[in-house]
């Protein structure tokens, strides 16, 4: 690698850092004021890129038209941001964090399908920016002018934002609101306008970043989650709510990636290492180091003490009636293959697998108190492990060993995650899941890349749909019962104790972090069991198995069923899997449908199905 080639990579990395900063700082700003982490922030950037593509085409090829199109796209996205704030978030400011996060995820799904409907599935590459399409000669190498423009833009935006926040009245209010919400309310500030305003600005920056990204990267449907994962890494590294933190973190990550690409090119002649993988590893290592040393990020402050424990529902072990119902349901499920057709058997197998997947997530989020937006990482990892192991081992052994890989991943990821709590933890789980997905997606030689792996079939004696269904049903039932048993074991009580009151738990001798770490690992292991069963039921697996939307599916199942109950997740899995099955058959826009269901759920039935049933039961007994 020559110095000049390295320089090009470095400048390219810095240009990337600038646009990453624009998106990240928007997220930090909106979080500071509203205390809601908007998971749809990456979707706003994606929207910016697509809108810019159309506007640039519409406004003609001239420089004036081009830059007007960029500005208009940013404004349009800002408008969308305000709409999201007005009509969704505003109803949720008092709600538990988990519900807020989930609602913004509903938006992610809807935006994706809206973009798919309007622009189609193809990647759309924009034209070069007029006036910046050439290159500049620096130290004998041609550096794109556009990169230099972006590099300048980052510090400029940092400067403008700092100025805005320090000198204008609006900026001072934003800062005051970030420090102390009650005080601003007491000062008589019109909160509604403040919140809308800050969302306008945050979305504007995201939209601008999207529009500016167009000459460097085609607008594509994977942008939303790829970007939000990177933004989360930046935010976790820089510190949530810190503007200089976002800037420095974006720079560090941009440079680290550039270094990796440089090294990767060097290694082409030696050991064959493909550089995109290294960039992910670099990001991972930066994040790991920062988290290990400063859990709240370089410029972050530890959040004020965890909210005094929210009203907790008493968690009761399943009583006799439930045992009877569960046994009856199991017998019924076991007898079904005698009547059901092939198609129904496939659906029933899926339901059993997802019931276990959802139960494992519930274990982590409910009793464990650790919200995860990346639970599919463990599900998918085990599915891949099963597929790969089955090439050399008997299928039965592969099925048994594969979940251990998921457990191992949960052990490693969990070590970092349990250092954080609440939103931070959720962001980190998503970042890890996205990294895992990217590895599966890019590591062609092992994972088959975007095509995945095929020919993953069960052993001879399990090859009939019926036999495999029985195996799945048995395994899932045993695993779910085991999870329930753990919840009411001394360990399970300790885990719930740490969730209820970490202070009290430590004061009676429970190690909060170690307990959560163990809980995290158990949840990953059980998700892995579901994942391995899944691999052999489908015959093939693709990166979709560990993608974020699959994590969201699990989340929806848990919330749909009700977080506060044991049966809820199982119920939720049955309902959502059947629902999806029929939605997929009737519309290609199933994501948006799921998104709308999620939002409706959060807004109108925050306790889920089990909550509704329970409430009716309680009303029945105490007529009030």
């Amino acid at each position, binding site marked *: 690698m020559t110095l000049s080639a390295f320089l090009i990579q470095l400048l390219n990395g810095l240009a990337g850092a600038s646009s990453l900063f624009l998106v990240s700082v928007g997220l930090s700003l909106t979080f500071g004021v509203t205390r809601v982490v908007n998971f749809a922030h990456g979707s706003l950037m994606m929207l910016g890129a697509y809108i810019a593509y159309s506007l640039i085409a519409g406004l003609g090829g001239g420089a004036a038209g081009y830059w007007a199109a960029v500005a208009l796209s940013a404004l349009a996205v800002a408008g969308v941001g305000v709409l999201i704030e007005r009509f969704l978030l505003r109803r949720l400011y008092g709600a538990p964090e988990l519900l807020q996060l989930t609602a913004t995820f509903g938006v992610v799904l809807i935006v994706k399908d809206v973009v798919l409907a309007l622009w189609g599935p193809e990647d759309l590459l924009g034209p070069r920016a007029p006036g910046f399409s050439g290159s500049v000669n620096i130290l004998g190498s041609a550096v794109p002018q556009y990169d230099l423009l972006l590099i300048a833009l980052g510090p400029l935006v940092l400067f403008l934002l700092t100025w805005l926040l320090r000198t204008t009245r609006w900026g001072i209010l934003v800062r005051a609101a970030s420090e102390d919400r009650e005080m601003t309310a007491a000062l008589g500030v019109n909160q509604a306008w403040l919140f809308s305003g800050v969302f306008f600005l945050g979305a504007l920056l995201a939209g601008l970043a999207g529009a500016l990204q167009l000459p460097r990267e085609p607008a594509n449907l994977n942008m939303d989650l790829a970007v939000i994962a990177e933004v989360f890494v930046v935010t976790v590294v820089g510190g949530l709510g810190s503007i200089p933190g976002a800037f420095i973190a974006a720079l560090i990550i941009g440079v680290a990636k550039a270094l990796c690409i440089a090294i990767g090119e060097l290694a082409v002649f030696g050991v064959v290492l493909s550089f995109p993988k290294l960039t992910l590893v670099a990001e991972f290592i930066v994040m790991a180091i920062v988290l290990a040393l400063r859990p709240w990020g370089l410029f972050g402050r530890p959040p004020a003490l965890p909210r*005094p*424990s929210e*009203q*907790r*529902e*008493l*968690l009761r*072990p399943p009583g006799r009636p439930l045992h009877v119902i569960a046994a009856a349901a199991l017998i019924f499920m076991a007898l079904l293959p005698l009547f059901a057709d092939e198609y129904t058997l496939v659906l029933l197998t899926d339901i059993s697998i997802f019931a276990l997947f959802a139960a494992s997530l519930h274990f982590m989020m409910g009793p464990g108190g650790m919200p995860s937006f990346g639970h599919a990482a463990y599900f998918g990892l085990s599915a891949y492990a099963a597929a790969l192991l089955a090439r050399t081992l008997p299928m039965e052994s592969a099925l048994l060993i594969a979940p251990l890989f998921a457990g191992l991943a949960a052990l490693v990821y969990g070590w970092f995650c349990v250092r954080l709590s609440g939103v931070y933890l959720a962001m980190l789980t998503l970042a890890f899941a996205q990294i895992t997905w990217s590895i599966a997606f890019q590591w062609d030689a092992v994972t088959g890349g975007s095509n995945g792996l095929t020919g993953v079939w069960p052993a001879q004696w399990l090859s009939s749909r019926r036999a495999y269904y029985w195996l799945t049903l048995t395994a899932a039932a045993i695993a779910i019962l*085991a999870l329930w*048993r*753990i919840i*009411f*074991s*001394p*360990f*399970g*009580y*300790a885990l*719930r*104790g740490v*969730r*209820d*009151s970490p*202070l*009290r*738990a*430590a*004061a*009676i*001798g*429970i*190690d*909060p972090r170690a*307990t959560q770490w163990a809980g995290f690992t*158990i949840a990953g292991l059980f998700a892995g069991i579901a994942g391995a069963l899944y691999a052999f039921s489908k015959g093939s697996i693709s990166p979709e198995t560990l993608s974020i939307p699959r994590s969201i599916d699990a989340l929806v199942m848990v919330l749909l069923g009700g977080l506060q109950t044991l049966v809820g997740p199982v119920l939720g899995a049955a309902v959502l899997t059947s629902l999806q099955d029929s939605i997929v058959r009737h519309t290609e826009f199933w994501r948006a449908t799921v998104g709308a269901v999620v939002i409706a759920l959060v807004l109108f039935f925050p306790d889920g199905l089990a909550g509704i049933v329970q409430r009716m039961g309680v009303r029945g007994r105490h007529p009030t």
Partner: protein
Amino acid sequence: MSESAVLIVDRLCKSYGGVHALRELSFSVNSGEKVAVIGPNGAGKTTLFNVLNGQLAADAGAVVFDAASIGGLPPQTIARRGVGRTFQVPATFGSMTARENVQLALFGRHTQLRAAFADARAFEAKESLALLERAGIVALADRSCATLAYGDLKRVELAIALACRPRLLLMDEPTAGLAPSERATLMSLVVALAANDGVALLFTEHDMDVVFAHADRVLVLNRGRLISAGPPSVVRSDPQVRKVYLGPPTLPGNA
């Protein structure tokens, strides 16, 4: 420092940014002794307890418990060594019943916490009921802690703390937020239970009647500094204490 000192605190310092919450604080507590820490709001009492039980790290100084240094250890380790704790605002497990709260504390003592497949409900059911009985709330054993009244929560905390069989119990304002009559009753109960189990008691309190009725010794803190220490009668008449805290002849009620 006497031979039987269960806790020795030596030149403890702690500051939050510019606020010096503890300055060069030194004292000791003998086994079985009842020591009250008093002082105006913000004197550093809660900070002292947080440092003693490991929740906060001290900036300087040493804490010796049972002849071993516990400075810098995490709270769970200090708890297992035999330091119990109740909080100014009661901290209990809200998704569990009063009995389960005490059971969980008992699991810890018997190091059963790692048992992930045993059924927890059968464990220690009797002993946890006995502890609730002693704390006077056995009737509430199956009520959720999220629904208990403030005074009952204080009693649950007491039962939890005793379940760990501490040698030293740190109680941050055990009677705050209770009606005056209830205060005296609860404190008498605490003192009786502690005496029965041979537990040394270090407690903070704003109710001077409670302090002077029950403490063997009183430590007075002001702005993180120990300004007076000794038996209640001595401290009571210390002019400096009168000036910063107790005020002229009539005693203040509650802060």
